[in-house]
């Protein structure tokens, strides 16, 4: 049978063999946890602790500001030693709460699970928000916002994203293998909150073991597990919807415009923890991999753990480092060093030595059209990039630059090594700035 997929995209070497077979390991506590107040899309949280305060694991250290915002929690018990700007994965120092662990790792008092079945929707949503749950696939969009669709946009389908199409990353894969019951439990809560008719769980066919485990775990529920063709960016929200139910999200629209909400499998597990045990989001699973790490692993790691600690736990780096990427190699962000901490969006940490992340010098466009064929958003990367580099942003907008999902397929496939995504991002920033000006 032909597996479901979407038009466009490509398949870079997935390099998942380094960690796919390795069970998730608990990462030991570091000497210091740096918990950034900005870990999600939307307004950063406001610090609500001061230096010298003693906090318990799960205690709120940053309060949500506005609806599209979530609180930030202490990820272990200990003393607050600083509230100041610290290096952030975004590349500049941003406000953070620094905690020195006391080693007891004591949960905050009064944590209790609630029987979801007896709760009304509103208190469940509040609980998910209070637990600080955001999209753990990497985009970190606050989950409660997605679970509060406006009345005129009825949701009939819930899609669970177990695709994990980025090379190297195996965090979601391992989670599906090791904790399928938590995921299924979280899905049933999400199903109820959205009142959906249909629930689909998409997994790429290169994870047959995960498909088997999830199919077994979903037996007897209304969740359909669907195997998808192995292609990047299958895990991108809009491409996943197209592959699974054949609906295209309109230009400038959101999945809710076609009656769909997409959640990552890791998010579903975090929702289950929040509701069944009352536990806020204080840890996540991250893959530490790449050719320059001694012992690649999947780690269950506290939010706020410095990247250098992750590297040390995985046996250190092999030789000199030339490139450090947080997230996957296609869409992850390059890091200035290992000082930044793990945030809720950190799905992985990849290390490369000199020559292991080659980049050819840029050449002229030879009009081969490979970028156009690879583009899953069906836009013309080469035309938009050319306009952007001439500062002709109106024209770039006319070529639907705003529909770019920044997946990086065009840059990856370009034989002339043109930094297409960078140029398109510049166009998008200029268009947004113009729109804000009005």
């Amino acid at each position, binding site marked *: 049978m032909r597996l479901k997929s979407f038009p466009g995209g490509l398949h870079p070497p997935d390099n998942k063999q380094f960690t796919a077979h390795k069970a998730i390991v608990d990462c030991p506590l570091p000497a210091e946890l740096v918990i950034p107040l900005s870990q999600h899309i939307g307004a950063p949280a406001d610090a609500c602790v001061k230096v010298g305060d003693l906090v318990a694991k799960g205690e709120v250290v940053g309060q949500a500001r506005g609806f599209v915002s979530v609180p930030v929690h202490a990820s272990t018990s200990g003393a607050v030693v600083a509230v100041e700007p610290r290096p952030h994965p*975004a*590349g*500049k120092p941003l406000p953070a709460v620094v905690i020195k662990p006391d080693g007891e790792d004591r949960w905050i008092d009064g944590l209790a699970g609630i029987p979801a079945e007896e709760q009304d929707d509103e208190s469940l949503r509040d609980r998910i928000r209070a637990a600080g749950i955001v999209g753990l696939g990497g985009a970190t969009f606050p989950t409660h916002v997605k679970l509060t669709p406006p009345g005129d946009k009825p949701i009939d389908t819930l899609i669970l994203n177990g695709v994990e199409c980025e090379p190297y990353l195996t965090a979601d894969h391992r989670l599906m293998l090791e904790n399928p019951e938590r995921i299924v439990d979280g899905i049933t809560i999400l199903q109820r909150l959205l009142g959906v008719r249909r629930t689909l769980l998409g997994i790429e066919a290169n994870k047959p073991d995960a498909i088997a485990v999830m199919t077994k775990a979903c037996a007897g529920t209304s969740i359909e597990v669907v195997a998808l063709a192995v292609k990047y960016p299958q895990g991108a929200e809009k491409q996943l919807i197209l592959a699974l139910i054949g609906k295209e999200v309109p230009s400038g629209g959101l999945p809710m415009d076609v009656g769909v909400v997409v959640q990552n499998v890791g998010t579903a597990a975090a929702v289950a923890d929040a509701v069944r045990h009352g536990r806020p989001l204080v840890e996540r699973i991250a893959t530490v991999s790449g050719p320059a790490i001694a012992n690649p692993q999947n780690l269950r790691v506290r939010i706020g753990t410095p990247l250098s600690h992750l590297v040390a736990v995985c046996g250190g780096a092999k030789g000199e480092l030339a490139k450090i990427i947080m997230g996957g190699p296609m869409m992850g962000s390059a890091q*200035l060093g290992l000082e930044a901490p793990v945030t809720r969006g950190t799905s992985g940490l990849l290390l490369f030595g000199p020559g292991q992340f080659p*980049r050819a010098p840029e050449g002229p466009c030879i009009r081969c059209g490979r970028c156009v064929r690879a583009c899953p958003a069906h836009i013309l990367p080469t035309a938009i990039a050319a306009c952007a*580099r001439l500062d002709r942003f109106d024209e770039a907008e006319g070529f639907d630059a705003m529909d770019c999902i920044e997946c990086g397929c065009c840059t990856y496939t370009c034989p002339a090594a043109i*930094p297409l995504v*960078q*140029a398109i991002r*510049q166009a998008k920033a200029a268009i947004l700035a113009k729109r804000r000006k009005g």
Partner: protein
Amino acid sequence: MLASILSLGGIGLLAALALGLAARKFAVEVDPRELAILEVLSGANCGACGYPGCGAYAKAVAGGTADPTLCTPGGAGTVAQIAHILGVEATAAEPQVAVVRCQGDNDRAKLKYHYLGIYDCTAAQRIADGPKSCPGGCLGLGTCARVCPFGAIEMTAAGLAVISREKCTGCRKCIAACPRQVIAMAPLRATVHVLCNSQDKGALVRKYCQVGCIACQICHKTVPAAYVIENSLARVVYEHQEEAAAAVAKCPTRCIRDFAEGYPEGSRFSAPTCPTTAGRAA
């Protein structure tokens, strides 16, 4: 033969008559002063006056809706000519030049990462706030030099923008293009400038730049009237420009420069012979 001459000639005459009438009927009145003003403008269409090009500005001046002193590239000479055409009194504003407030090229200031992307400062600035460790330093990718309509900005081999005081006309295009606000306007008569744009504390500046202002106050103590220190950054008070030169040699990081003594190291521009009038049309 005759018939063809007559018919062709007749068509010609008719067409000439029609064109002549049309020229009268659809004639567009052009203020002769507008054309005269357009003649004396520099023709660079730089937009320094705030109008879309020299033609639009000439029209606005002739129509009386624009100030006749706005053409900074033309300087005092152009203003005098426009005033003569209009028959009014007008004096040009004091000539201004753009100054790059940075000497931290890639040899003297630290980089926080190796940038390989699009060769453009605005693009580089979007990636973790630019590859320079200093948040205010020149990125050296030449975005300002590419927008300068007068070819007044050169990029040194080590990646620093340097603006020629002779060629700069004060149109401010580079200021709008620079993503880090490194460039500022200053009166042309002032030759002494603090070439630093970092508002970080001295200890931090020392970590990433050899020629940054560390706000040690020595310049202010030497000539109190000519220097002020704000946000850990010294600034020349241009009203007391004459006295400012006394502190140049005392600056421990050599971030104060007297352009009368030459441009920053690595620049091919020569020292101006007369800083106040060189290169200006009289």
